[in-house]
């Protein structure tokens, strides 16, 4: 009877033991959000975890893991050397996606791409709105897919970082109604962002930002992910990665209602 019992237990646990994947977590531990996510993954208890904290000592000597979970650009860049399947979250450098085959690597970007943003905008904006997408050479890859099929007149304006203040004024003088900012470090420079906010108000041209912080700093409209939801979805995304499934993160429109009243755009109330 005892022998049968042990065999039964072995049968029950053997597949579990076999399915417990070894994963390498790569992240910067000075970012609280990453620490929080790492703890979430640990709490799942479904993986054998190996950790690599980029800003502490990180020396991975063998490839005894099944796949890599990376948080952030630097973690993803570091992970490429291992030639293992990679799932990377919070990627802002779109060029990283070209450095790894799509079958081996899965990237969840920090911000929704141009097509996703415009799709979201089409839910609230009237047709034939004249839209300019503002980007630099660095963020041009954000517009990776052809922007066709939208009910807008879309123009892509590429500006150089060295003459940005001058170029911004020229763009705001043009006949656009909406200006969409591509996710770019350039637009997060304090001086540049403040100039964009000032020009947006004085020219009454709605600027769509990509970071919820921009909303608090004065932009009336931001389209991006809802990061609180992403926290809860990331463990699921890691689980699904084993099964070669991709889950999409929900995109939200954040509106500062007090501010947006001052702009001559008719929104769909819904």
């Amino acid at each position, binding site marked *: 009877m005892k022998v049968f019992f042990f065999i039964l237990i072995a049968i029950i646990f053997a597949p579990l033991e076999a399915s417990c994947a070894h994963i390498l977590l790569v992240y910067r531990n000075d*970012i*609280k959000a990453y620490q929080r996510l790492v703890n979430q993954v640990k709490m799942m208890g479904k993986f054998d975890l190996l950790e690599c904290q980029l800003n502490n000592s990180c020396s991975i000597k063998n490839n005894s893991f099944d796949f890599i979970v990376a948080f952030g650009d630097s973690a993803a860049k570091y992970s490429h050397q291992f030639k293992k399947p990679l799932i990377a979250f919070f990627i802002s450098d779109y060029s990283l996606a070209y450095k790894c085959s799509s079958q081996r690597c899965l990237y969840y970007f920090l911000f929704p791409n141009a097509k996703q943003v415009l799709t979201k905008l089409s839910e609230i904006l009237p047709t034939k709105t004249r839209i300019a997408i503002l980007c630099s050479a660095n963020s041009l890859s954000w517009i990776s897919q052809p922007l066709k099929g939208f009910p807008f007149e879309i123009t892509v304006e590429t500006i150089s970082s060295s003459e940005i203040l001058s170029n911004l004024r020229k763009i705001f003088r043009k006949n656009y109604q909406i200006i969409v900012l591509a996710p770019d*470090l350039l637009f997060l*420079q304090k001086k540049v962002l403040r100039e964009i906010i000032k020009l947006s108000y004085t020219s*009454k041209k709605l600027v769509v930002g990509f970071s919820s912080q921009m909303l608090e700093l*004065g932009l009336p409209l931001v389209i991006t992910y809802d990061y609180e939801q992403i926290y809860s979805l990331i463990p699921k995304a890691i689980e699904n990665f084993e099964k070669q499934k991709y889950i999409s993160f929900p995109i939200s429109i954040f509106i500062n209602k007090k501010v947006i009243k001052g702009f001559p755009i008719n929104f769909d109330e819904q």
Partner: protein
Amino acid sequence: MSRFLACFLSFLVLASQALPAEIDDQELLFLEVANIATGYPQVKFEAPSTVTVITEEEMTNMGARTLLDALRLVPGLEVGLDLSGMPIVSMRGLYTAGSEKILFMINGRPVNIVLTGGGTPFFADLSVNKIERVEIIRGPGSVLYGSNAFSGVINIILKKEVPTAFSYRRGSYDTDELSFQWSHQIGPAFSWANLSYREDSGAKMTVKKDFLEVEPLASQNPNFPHYHKSNEWVRRGEYYIGSQFGSLLLESFYIHHADGGFFNLSGIPSKKTRYAREDFYFHTSWSKKIGPFESEWHLDSNYYHHHHFVDYFPPGITVYDPATSRTYTFNYGVRWLREAEILSLGGETRFSYRNKKHRLTWGLVIHNDNLHNPSLKENIDPVTEENLPYLVKIPKNWIRSADRFYYSFYGQDEWKPFSWISLTLGARWDNYDDFGDKTSFRAGLVLSPWKHWRFKFLYGEAFRAPSFMELYFKKCPLTPRQGNPKLDAEEMESYELNISYITRYFQIGITFYRQNYYNLIYMLPDPYYTLTFENSSSMATTDGIEIESKLVWGPGNFNYLLFSYSYQDTDMPQKVLEGSFINPPYHLITLDLNYRFFSKIGLNYYLRYVGKRDNIDDYLISNLIWNFYSPCCVFSFGIYNIFDKKYDLPSIDEQRYPEGFVRPGRTLEAKLTWYF
């Protein structure tokens, strides 16, 4: 890499942190950042010094015409005038003729003129059109910046990356200012230019009482010209150009300035008096980063030309000289021309190393100042003492040729063992070939135990090398001041406690400080009315409280209220008080309210209260500015001193001008900036 470029890159660094900010808690990311406290960008509330930052937006909104207008936002900062009408900037109650106790910097490089030791001759009334922001340390800064960073440091960050624009300003007293700014990327070089020219006929104010205790209008001699109005005309050009090739920076700044002074030495101005000076500054820097190490190399050169033509004592005046008990009659009046040139050359190399918890900085400074070609011409024969209708060269000069060489070593460690605590320690050793060596220390402990609170405990030392005027000025009967080559440097130590509460929309900081001064240089009168520069053997102190706050609200965060209050109590030895010029007000209050209407129109109300001091009443002035903003232009119209309050600024010498320096009442200005 230049400090300015480092500053520019710092925004990139901050921006790169902003991406994780999406998923992290970095509410304080968009607070004002300054490089001035450590040489690296830091949120001003976390810097190991008491720091104020004035932004371009604040200067535009408040209708600031020159840097002086903007500086009045700084707690504990006061403005006065010297005999020639040159502004004197003082901080924390320490008030001296050439503002030599404050270090002026352009893009992080010291630019004080060694002749007087101060930076006000050129930089106090800099046009705001070329200023991107101003960073101010209230308190000592000698460990990083050496001499003159005594009671404060003012770092003027000039604009480089600008939209092409032209602006014109027109105001009361025939004030006209033209400005042009441009920047462009040409191949690997990014170049910029910022040029401006200003003319101002100046206010014509009645001189109530003069040095000779004579009412100008009631002159005893009916043949005297009735020079009873002040004479403050200004002609000034400022030309700043530069280029950047990767990490190589080249920039130059040429300023020529001429004005008619305010009073001349008799208190009876003449239209012929002309104080002129020009300054050509050139700076180049290069930087290299290898792993955790970074090096910066700077070369600075400065050419200063001093040209002061003074026309005073109207023809026919009789003067009694108490030193000789003689009476002199000047049939042709008295005129003189003083000239000198100063060439300064210097270099600095700075290294830094950064790891997880430490940032080490160390550097070497080498500098040489050379005063040459001094000359003095007067219309009094040096042998016969005859009053002449023309100028003759005087063999006994007004100042002697001089040369000063110094080198300095400094080091600083910023240690951050935990995220809520940082400790900064620094030391500097300076060796001057004229007065010897000085060592300065600093320590700053910054605690952030709770999310919105910051506590700073600061200790700092500073010194000020005596200026060439203080060392080598030669006395003459009409300006009985005499330099003293034996002077030692002034020294000070400062203890500060700063408590700040900061959120995105409201910030307030309260600073309690005590500053002790040693060896202060003052003018000691002798029985023959000759004033000789001496070091005081007694300690002087200033105790004070400064409050600085900002409240931001409304769409776009355009609406704000800036408020500052400072209380300062200076305790000086009696002989310093008598021989020098310490007369600070106890209370200073500044309020600046900015409100945006209809997205394009801004209204700004500025109010300044300066408390009562010895012999000078308190006063309150306020300005009202309308701004109209559009992507192609900005138009502003301002009423300055809207209630037409007459007020006096303190003068360098209370005994000479008991009425102080009376200032104009209400004035109007309009300005249009057009962007191409």
